[in-house]
């Protein structure tokens, strides 16, 4: 990247692409060509910057100016003012929500200040479709170092010393897993990358594959070298078309450069990677189910042991790691285990990527050292709760995790603390809820998800979760009884104790943690027939306040089921027998004339 004086980095993540970043690139290029700057300025697409809330984002290097919410029409001003005259376009800069000051350098933004990017190091800095840019940022150096200088055992020792634990949720020490797989005798072994990310609220694996696919490829090759495998497989969800495309491009480039294939870097080491597409089954994120799916079978889990490290794909020893885990490997080998193990807490080393979503100001991907508190994540990086509302809960760990209250805001986040708090790390999804969210409904939502994604093999998961869901359904419909709470707890514990795989064993967690932390809300539903958050539709109705209704007909026109009647300029009425309580009228009304009761 030395030939150009300036670089314009445009976020090419799907989020920003959907918001016209293609148009912006075209428009910037046109203006640059028109003003004859094409030899000095390069315009490139990069992976996701993580700050999706304010996309599309354009970054100007080397001065690190960070433009947010850019529109194609802004290109002219950026090129003429900033590139030509060196004056940043003030109105496109990010404004700090607290100090109201415009911040030009992204390093000054709270969102980035507390972050430490290891797995996401290249996301947003390089063009993910260019292997040269990856190489220019120390890419494939770790692979070269392993093949040239380190024995497999030395490499594994380095990973073990770093303290890296699996980032997919389980938290199993990565180095140990590699060592176990290495020590099993077999004529053939496999490296598998688990990119079947399906946790509601988690999207870091997608972003890494879209923003920095080579880091995963490099790490898989290193893993292959360590455990003695010549074949790698990436099992990726069919729901991620852009990630699949970028990965395919990256694989082809790596082959062209001789970094995959036969006799890599002249060392005699062979390694090849294939892509296997998932087909929409969450349970395939469980490693035994994933392996069965790759074998062409139904993606049902099987009992462990034998662990995949001993008997996996086609019965051969198979090392399964998650995308984020792999993305950490090259950095650990380049910077050393002692550097990595200094970051984080005693038992959880390094950083963790979290996906912030829900009722929080800055949604998107963040990466922080283990041990950062939830308060720092939600308030400092996340910018607090949307619309100035009160924080109620944060759900971590997806359908296997739990909902934490404000009492846990100062808990340092690591694998063990989250489990102690009744949740889990999971793959790192964090869904923030405010005072308007009903925790009973939230628990019901997660169960709906589990119900649908349960493979049906073992009965505690298949039938037990169905019964749990029915009880919750009754509660949210206003037909619950107080003894239902006890029944929920009892049944949840049976499901946890007796299910076959991780999906079933953790599926009651959202129920248990909401009962534990928000029992009063459950009691309000069953004893008083009330939903304190005003979410359970069966327990409330929409009404038009006659005195405030101006008869503007906006609600009438937007009602999807024709439940609203009334003459123009006359108060309107909602027919409760037709109303499906979708809330459109409530949102559309400009006069606050619709109330919930």
């Amino acid at each position, binding site marked *: 990247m030395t030939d150009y004086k300036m670089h314009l980095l445009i976020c090419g993540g799907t989020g920003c692409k959907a918001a016209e970043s293609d148009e912006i690139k075209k428009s910037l290029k046109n203006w640059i060509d028109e003003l004859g700057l094409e030899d000095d300025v390069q315009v490139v697409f990069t992976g996701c910057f993580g700050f999706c809330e304010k996309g599309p984002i354009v970054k100007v290097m080397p001065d690190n100016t960070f433009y947010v919410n850019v529109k194609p029409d802004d290109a002219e001003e950026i090129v003429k003012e900033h590139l030509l005259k060196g004056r940043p376009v003030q109105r496109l800069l990010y404004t700090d929500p607290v100090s109201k000051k415009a911040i030009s350098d992204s390093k000054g933004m709270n969102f980035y200040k507390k972050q430490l990017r290891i797995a996401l190091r290249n996301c947003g800095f390089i063009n993910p479709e260019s292997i040269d840019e990856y190489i220019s940022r120390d890419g494939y150096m770790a692979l070269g170092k392993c093949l040239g200088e380190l024995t497999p055992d030395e490499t594994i020792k380095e990973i073990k010393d770093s303290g890296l634990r699996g980032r997919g949720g389980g938290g199993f020490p990565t180095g140990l897993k590699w060592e176990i797989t290495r020590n099993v005798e077999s004529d053939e072994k496999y490296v598998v990358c688990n990119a079947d990310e399906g946790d509601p609220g988690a999207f870091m694996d997608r972003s890494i594959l879209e923003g920095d696919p080579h880091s995963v490829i490099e790490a898989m090759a290193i893993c292959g070298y360590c455990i003695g495998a010549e074949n790698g497989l990436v099992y990726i969800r069919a*729901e991620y078309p852009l990630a699949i495309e970028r990965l395919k491009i990256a694989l082809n480039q790596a082959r062209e450069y001789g970094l995959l294939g036969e006799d890599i870097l002249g060392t005699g080491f062979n390694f090849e990677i294939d892509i296997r597409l998932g*087909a929409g089954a969450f349970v395939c994120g469980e490693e035994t189910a994933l392996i069965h799916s790759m074998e062409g079978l139904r993606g049902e889990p099987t009992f462990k042991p034998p662990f995949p490290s001993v008997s996996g794909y086609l019965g051969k020893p198979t090392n399964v790691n998650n995308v984020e885990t792999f993305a950490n490997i090259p950095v650990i080998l380049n910077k050393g285990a002692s550097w990595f193990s200094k970051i984080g807490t005693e038992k959880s080393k390094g950083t963790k990527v979290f996906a912030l979503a829900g009722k929080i100001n800055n949604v998107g991907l963040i990466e922080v050292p283990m041990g950062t508190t939830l308060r720092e994540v939600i308030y400092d990086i996340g910018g607090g709760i949307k619309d100035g509302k009160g924080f109620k809960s944060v759900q971590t760990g997806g359908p296997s995790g739990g909902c934490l209250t404000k009492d846990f805001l100062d808990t340092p986040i690591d694998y063990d603390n989250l489990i102690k708090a009744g949740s889990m790390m999971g793959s790192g999804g964090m*869904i923030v809820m405010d005072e308007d969210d009903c925790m009973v409904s939230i628990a019901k939502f997660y169960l709906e998800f589990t119900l649908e994604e349960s493979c049906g093999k073992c009965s505690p998961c298949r039938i037990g979760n169905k019964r749990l869901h029915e009880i919750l359904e009754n509660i949210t419909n206003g037909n619950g009884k107080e003894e239902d709470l006890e029944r929920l707890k009892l049944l949840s514990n049976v499901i946890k104790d007796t299910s076959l795989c991780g999906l079933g064993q953790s599926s009651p967690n959202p129920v248990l943690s909401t009962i534990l932390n928000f029992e009063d809300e459950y009691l309000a539903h069953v004893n008083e027939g009330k939903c304190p958050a005003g979410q359970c539709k069966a327990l409330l109705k929409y009404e038009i306040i006659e005195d405030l209704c101006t008869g503007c007909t906006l609600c009438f026109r937007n009602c999807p089921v024709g439940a609203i009647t009334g003459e123009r300029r006359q108060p309107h009425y909602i027919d409760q027998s037709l109303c499906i309580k979708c809330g459109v009228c409530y949102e559309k009304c400009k006069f606050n004339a619709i109330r919930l009761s």
Partner: protein
Amino acid sequence: MDPVQSLVKGLADKYGRTRESLLPVMQGVVQQEKYLSEYSMVEIAREMDIPASDVYGTATFYSFLETQPAGKFIIRVCKTITCAMKGKNQILFSIQDMLKIKVGETTPDNRFTLLETNCLGWCHKAPAMLINDEVYTDLTPEKIREILSGYIKKSI
């Protein structure tokens, strides 16, 4: 050889005829035909020498392997928690209203199929949907009208 037979044969030649190739072959058929008909499943079974019941059993396990006839454009609306919190229902209503079909149905002209799906990984840009391989995020009823009008024009 009819088109389905030659499609299956071509895919089996490309991916192989062992059990591991079953998913790629089925995905290839779905890509071309939009769904796995009983006939195509029997053909896959014959070509790959796998019991037809096994092919059916595997196909029905995966939600992206349709076994019901589907339209040219398959709309998959994310129904998972963040999208639901951010108004997925309104999105569904406006699609249903515009295409006059319910979830799980296909328009009579075989152009659109409407389905719900689990997390698409766009929780920070909710609500989201997929139309075939295209992702659409930050949806509003207005945006739906715009996007679908585009597809309606495209498919004429």
